[in-house]
């Protein structure tokens, strides 16, 4: 497949370890620390990051896992309620998603649950979903109990960790856990399928938009 950002894919045919590229979407209420989490992950530990660093909205990071190299392409989403309806455009074709909430804010946990539900219903069925309770460093102001979130995650088959972008706690771990869980061999088919899904969905929204305008 033609790919402009295909540096990661090029060595696929060579004898080196596999390189898999995954699209990861960040979901969650605004101000729960989505971008801080990613910035910590992308710039905190690894230094080979070469691309332009002007924005935290779109970032890439490579993780080495045994014999495979996993390249994450992280798409940040606007967390405000008013942009909620646009989220499907972002998570369409994504192989992984991190739903972030703030452990000091019960509302954000409620929103996270809605995101999870929506992802399970609308996103690719193979999508790996991780739940991240961010701002663990403010545990003394905790409003969401660890057990509560853990139980919820277990029930829904989610990866769960409490993280802190400030102290870097569990930040790399959660990305590594996702990388482990992602299917490494079905990458090509997953991409093809997602592409198909994108166009159909795009047509849907177009029709819907037109319908709205007509009213």
């Amino acid at each position, binding site marked *: 497949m033609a790919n402009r950002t295909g540096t990661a894919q090029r060595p696929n045919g060579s004898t080196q370890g596999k390189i898999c590229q995954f699209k990861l979407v960040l979901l969650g209420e605004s101000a729960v620390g989505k971008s801080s989490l990613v910035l910590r992950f992308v710039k905190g530990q690894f230094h080979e990051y070469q691309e332009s660093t*002007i924005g935290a909205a779109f970032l890439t990071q490579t993780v080495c896992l045994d014999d495979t190299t996993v390249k994450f392409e992280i798409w940040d989403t606007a967390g405000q309620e008013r942009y909620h309806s646009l989220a499907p455009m*972002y998570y369409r074709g994504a192989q992984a998603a991190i739903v972030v909430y703030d452990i000091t804010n019960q509302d954000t946990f409620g929103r996270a649950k809605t995101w999870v539900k929506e992802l399970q219903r609308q996103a690719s069925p193979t999508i790996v979903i991780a739940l991240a309770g961010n701002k663990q460093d403010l545990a003394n102001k905790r409003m969401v109990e660890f057990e509560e979130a853990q139980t919820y995650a277990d029930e829904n088959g989610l990866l769960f960790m409490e993280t802190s972008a400030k102290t870097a706690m569990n930040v790399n771990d959660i990305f590594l856990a996702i990388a482990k869980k992602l299917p490494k061999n079905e990458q090509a088919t997953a991409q093809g399928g997602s592409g198909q899904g994108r166009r159909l969905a795009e047509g849907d929204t177009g029709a819907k938009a037109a319908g709205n305008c007509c009213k």
Partner: protein
Amino acid sequence: MPIFALQRSYKYMMYATKQPSLRINQADLKCKNGCGYYGNADWDGYCSKCYRNHMDQERQRKARQSHHSDQTKISGFSKFEEKKRQQTDKKNKYLKSLPVFRKTSSVKDSGRPERHLDLRQANPDADKLMAEFISLYGVWGDMVRRDFFKCVQSFTTKIYSELDNKPIEDIAEMAQKYYNLYSNRVNSTETYQEVTTDVRDELLDFFEKYVMVSLYSWLFCPPSTNDEEKDLIIQERIRKLSWVNAHHLDCCISETSIEVRDLVYTAITHLLGMDSMKAPQEKLACVVNCCQSVVKVLQHCQGGPVSADEFLPALIFIVLKANPARLKSNILYVTRFCNDSRLMQGEAGYYFTNLCCAVSFIENLTAESLNMPQQEFEAYMNGEITSVSAWESALVACEGMHQLCEHLSLLKDLSQRTTTVQDETQKLTQDILKFKDEINEKVISVLEKTPLIIKPRKTPEDLKIEASQIAAIKIEVEETQPQTNFYLQNLQIGQNNLGENKTKLQLDITSCMDKQQSLEFLSPAFESLEGATPDDQNSLSLSKINYDIDFSDLSGENSVAELTPEKRKSPSFTPDPFSPVGSSCTITQVPLVPSQVESDFVLPFVEGEKAGEETLLEKEDEAANLPSPIKPMTSQYSGFSKQGWQIPSIPCITGDLASSNASQSNSQASTSHDN
């Protein structure tokens, strides 16, 4: 669909009129049907007869086709779509009645590919790309080039042949399949074996670019769709929403900063530029450039990394202010014909998704999504309320207004600068004052520490005392010269005993007086000093000791006396009094003396005199052998006055007394000590 052909031929004519020199040759002038007659551009290149036949056929075909397409469209689209289609058909029918837009192809199957080739050659962009290809990838050999153009040819032919029969979504699907096919071909066939992986990717890109540029006229905003109407709807929608500003969207774009405004203009320019590009990746590049400018704007406004929470509202704002032409068509074109992998991944994909989101948000924008009351929203939408801000007028209103606003912001900036300059000036003034004070203080403190003022005072004072002593001695000398001659030898030795100070002062005085009084003249003074003490020569050594003791004794009573030994130690007085150098040194100092001597002359010596008197009174008998001080005093006094430089008369008197008394007392003291 008939309208395709209409547009196609219309565009063909456009090219024909634009670049006649390139295109018209003998063959082109002939009727397209090959009947041998000359054709006419107005008749789509046919001769009049063929054109009429062709039109008849066309009309029949159109009738058939429109019926067919109605059926397919109804099945595939919503009721709204159906309505739109019917409207389009009506339009088509209306257009059909106009002869200028008549369809050109006479025989569908044979005619189209032939014309297709013509059109491809006529496309100046395709020509340019061909040249570009050869310059870029010519090095990889003829095989690559031939294969590339073979694939391009097959792609364009295939797509073109399907244009009329399939909905645009299917054609997009076909295009994607072709991209994949060519990708596989490049990566697996022997033809491309020598090509490096980087160049392979470039080739794929170029393939996409080439075919899309070639087919742009048909694939962009195809008449089979209602893209154009969507464009108009969104354009109208954005126009209605022109009152929406950054505050409504909660995005922190500062409206007054010129740099921010420049960046916003850059972003808008990039977004508008999307319409002028033909290849999907070029359009995508425009979107990426636009979004990067938006990120820069945000970075400028808020600092720190820009997250999606801020980015999306800002992009929406930019789209609202830019109101790009054919926005929807462009988005749909890119969505359909851009290589999927590019849209699904990478920065370009992300930013394009954001653009789609922004457009979708604008389409579905309600009062709720702006967090404002329904009534207010409607009032804005109906134009009942108009928001006026510098920003709005800069982006929306006329040039004059725009300039006005820019000037206002410039003025604001200037006034800010002026105030800062003023502040700085004040600060500077304060600093200067402070500095001045500091310097003053320092100077004062330094002056306080500095002995410069005191030194010149002390030195002459000392000299005065000495001078007065010497003067007195000298007077004595003049009187008692015969006696003193007797002691000359002793005196010369005694001079050794005297402090350097004294001898030097003697020298000073002598020189001051401008009299060539040698040491011989002075010697009697010392003689008189020691005269009282020992007639016996044994006391010479003692006299030395006595002197020291005398002074120390005096120092106990008299502060002035104390100065003398101190002065002896000071470096200026060190030179040996007998050496010519030392005397010459002291002589140079002399001029200082006379003027200052006068006032200070008396006091210290009066005390000394008194002290001397007391001792004198006690030991009158011993002092009897000395000449009476009174007699020479008068005579000497007149002598001094003659000299004219020593003004006060008093010092002379006292000095006279003092000298004699002191010498006596000194000698007495020494003797007493001896005893």
